[in-house]
């Protein structure tokens, strides 16, 4: 077993490359015609996307009766999927904003990719509440406070409207953050471009960036401000998503632990998704030096931490349900663990609580196939967490006379598959057409890139 010195910050860019070689390594996937692996992968994701698109088309034409949604389980799979995908997005902002504020320099190699995943995950997530309205092409009328002659406004005190504001703000700010990070990289691409058309496109998106230090100064300030704004924003988004549940009075939802528990769960699943995708990308595009094993190990530690927090929340929920003495509350939790949806509950519990605990062992943290499988488990578990929360509470609330049972239909599953297809198609296209690692940021943390102490001034 090789020993790792944890007392020093590990080298962030391995392989002793020069800055020029770093450029080449990052830009390589953009310049060459992709290999067969890429086409197989995108063919697979496009197939999933097509399945989802067909299912959605049928749902629009015949109506939402094709889904399993019923009374009392009106929210059902669309909301489960929405919460799942929004949660996936949170890891990206955590990496790009919170770790930036904490000066975690290892984030530089994965920040761009994680931010892109945030944007794609939020796009995927936004589909679900929109289709859940039944007629998404007029959803803007329901969701936005638009001026009209009837003075009919949205209800500003509703958690569902908070959600509209939170998720759209989250998307916009993430996108702006991402684009600001891309400006210098577009300029690098512009200066490397051989073809005329490529050059024009990159010039337009680079806005004419000149790497001027007078610009870098404001640029870094803006980056800091955006990170400072995005940090409370990312915490607020899943808090508000949890308010959709917690502000209602349904047993199992009406709990104050929901906001922190949802945020921890979101970061948990998001990190698992980023880790999965990074393992694939560094393999397919030969970026093992830019995304070193040390980074993946650090991510596994965060998965372990947030997974333990989520496990604590599960147990504490149960305890409070008993301790509160509220009969419907207690019933709901017993019903979750031993009722008709017990299978979902135990899939959730074993995937989320037990599997990340293996990361206490250093050997497992640094074993790529194993960590990949564990992260897949985490995502399966986190999807089931949302399923358990949404479905069990709605299907059996206070009045036994209004109980009902819910199963998703084939169309529901097809749309879920389609959402994975959309997400991974966007990820693959992104890696193909934009630098998946931030060129400017990774160069800034390469060996010898920064002046030695005192700015290299000669003290004669």
């Amino acid at each position, binding site marked *: 077993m090789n020993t790792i010195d944890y007392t020093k910050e590990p080298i962030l860019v391995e392989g002793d490359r020069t800055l020029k070689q770093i450029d080449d390594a990052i830009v390589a996937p953009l310049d060459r015609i992709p290999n067969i692996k890429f086409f197989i992968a995108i063919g697979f994701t496009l197939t999933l996307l097509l399945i989802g698109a067909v299912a959605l088309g049928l749902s629009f034409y015949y109506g939402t009766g094709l889904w399993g949604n019923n009374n009392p389980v009106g929210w059902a799979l669309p909301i489960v999927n929405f919460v799942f995908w929004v949660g996936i997005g949170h890891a990206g902002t955590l990496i790009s904003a919170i770790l930036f504020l904490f000066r975690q320099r290892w984030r530089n190699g994965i920040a761009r990719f994680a931010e892109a995943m945030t944007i794609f995950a939020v796009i995927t997530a936004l589909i679900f509440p929109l289709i859940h309205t039944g007629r998404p092409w007029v959803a803007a009328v329901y969701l936005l406070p638009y001026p009209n002659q009837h003075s009919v406004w949205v209800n500003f005190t509703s958690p569902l409207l908070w959600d509209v504001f939170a998720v759209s*703000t989250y998307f916009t700010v993430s996108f702006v953050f991402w684009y600001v990070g891309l400006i210098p990289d577009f300029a690098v691409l512009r200066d490397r471009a051989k073809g005329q058309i490529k050059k024009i496109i990159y010039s337009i998106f680079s806005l004419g960036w000149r790497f001027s230090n007078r610009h870098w100064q404001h640029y870094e300030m803006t980056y800091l401000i955006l990170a400072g704004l995005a940090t409370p924003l990312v915490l607020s988004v899943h808090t508000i998503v949890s308010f959709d549940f917690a502000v209602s009075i349904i047993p199992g939802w009406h709990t104050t632990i929901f906001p922190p528990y949802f945020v921890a769960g979101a970061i948990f699943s998001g990190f698992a998704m980023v880790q999965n995708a990074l393992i694939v990308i560094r393999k397919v595009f030969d970026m093992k030096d830019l995304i070193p094993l040390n980074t993946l190990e650090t991510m596994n530690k965060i998965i372990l931490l947030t997974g333990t927090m989520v496990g604590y929340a599960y147990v504490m929920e149960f305890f409070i349900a008993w301790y509160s003495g509220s009969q419907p509350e207690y019933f709901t939790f017993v019903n979750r663990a031993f009722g008709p949806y017990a299978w979902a509950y135990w899939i959730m519990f074993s995937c989320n609580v037990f599997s990340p605990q293996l990361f206490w062992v250093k050997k497992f943290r640094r074993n790529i196939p194993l960590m990949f499988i564990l992260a897949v488990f985490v995502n399966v578990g986190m999807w089931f967490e949302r399923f358990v929360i949404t479905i069990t509470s709605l299907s059996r609330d206070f009045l036994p006379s209004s109980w009902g049972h819910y199963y998703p239909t084939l169309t529901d599953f097809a749309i879920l598959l389609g959402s994975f297809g959309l997400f991974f198609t966007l990820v693959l296209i992104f890696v193909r057409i934009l630098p998946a690692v931030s060129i*400017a940021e990774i160069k800034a943390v390469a060996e010898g890139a920064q002046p030695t102490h005192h700015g*290299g001034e000669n003290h004669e």
Partner: protein
Amino acid sequence: MSKKLFSLAAIFDKPNDIMHAADSIASDGYTKYDVNTPYPVHGMDGAMKLKPSRLGYFTISIGLTFMSLMLYFMYWVNNIDYPQVIGGKPFFPLPALVPILFEVTVLTGAVLTVVIMIVFFFKFPNNSHPLHDSDYIKDVSSDKYGLYIESDDPKFDLDKIKTRFKELGASRIDEIYWDEEEVKTVNRIMEPKFVIGLILIAGFTSFSAYMHLNKLLYITPFDWMMTQHKVSAQQKSDFFEDGFAMREPVMGSVARGFIPYAFKDDIQGAEQNLLNSLPATEENLKLGKKKYLTFCSPCHGDFGKGDSRLKGQFPNGPTIHSDKVVNWSDGMLYHVITVGQNSMPGYEKQINNKERWAIVHYIRTLQRAFNAEDGDLQ
């Protein structure tokens, strides 16, 4: 033709060199110079003696401004424009508005900071700067560190700066010129490419608007549920044996409030037996007037003088002030309204029982008014 010099630029290979060079050039008193590095180099702001960025002040003032505007907007919606009790909460439930206030602050603060940075601090987008496409920028965008002094600088002296750069350890020194295109200040708004582009955009916009408003909105499922799986009245339906979608009422059904009329073919009976049991109150007279003006006045005239408003398109109704009509009994008037007379149709279906009697009252009032006696004024 001599090109216009923009600047003299030096390339350095090591971050330490550029730090030293920037520090020295700033100390020499040059003002129009800049350092270009592939990534932000730590401590460069200090070496160039730049003031800290003021962008943060913009962010906070924008965020707070929009937060206040949003707060007022929500107050206006809930308290002024359409006050509405929601969930028994007050009209201005401040805690419930906090999430939206927060989101609006972050959204406007973040987006407008970036816009201000790009547009006002950087003067971007600007793709016609002389540095673009030079070897210099291709180097500093990758792995070199550059410093240039503009020819506009008051202390600019080509040879002096060249020696200074060499002294500081520059690995290459470039002279950067303005592009011909960039110096030209011709108005290019009428260029065919631009004009054709505008026409294409206009064409596309009109076409898509037309298709959207005239075609798309009539296709299922965008047609506001116009196509539905149900049968409408007057439609054919295979479900019933008779092929009609609309059902007839059960035999013997009577509509609510229906009173059969006993003297349909018995004008004598009506004249002798029917009496107006409706009291001649002000309310009933008003009802009679209203119904008279609606149903009777087009042919008989507003005051019953037989002055039709139809101007000969339809036979004029006779006056109701003739001796014949004045001498009719109430029952006779009622009968004529109900079943009609000569070319006048019956109004049984349109005017109900009570209203017909109210009209009779009103006709009597009109007749009295036209043949008033002396004592009536009292």
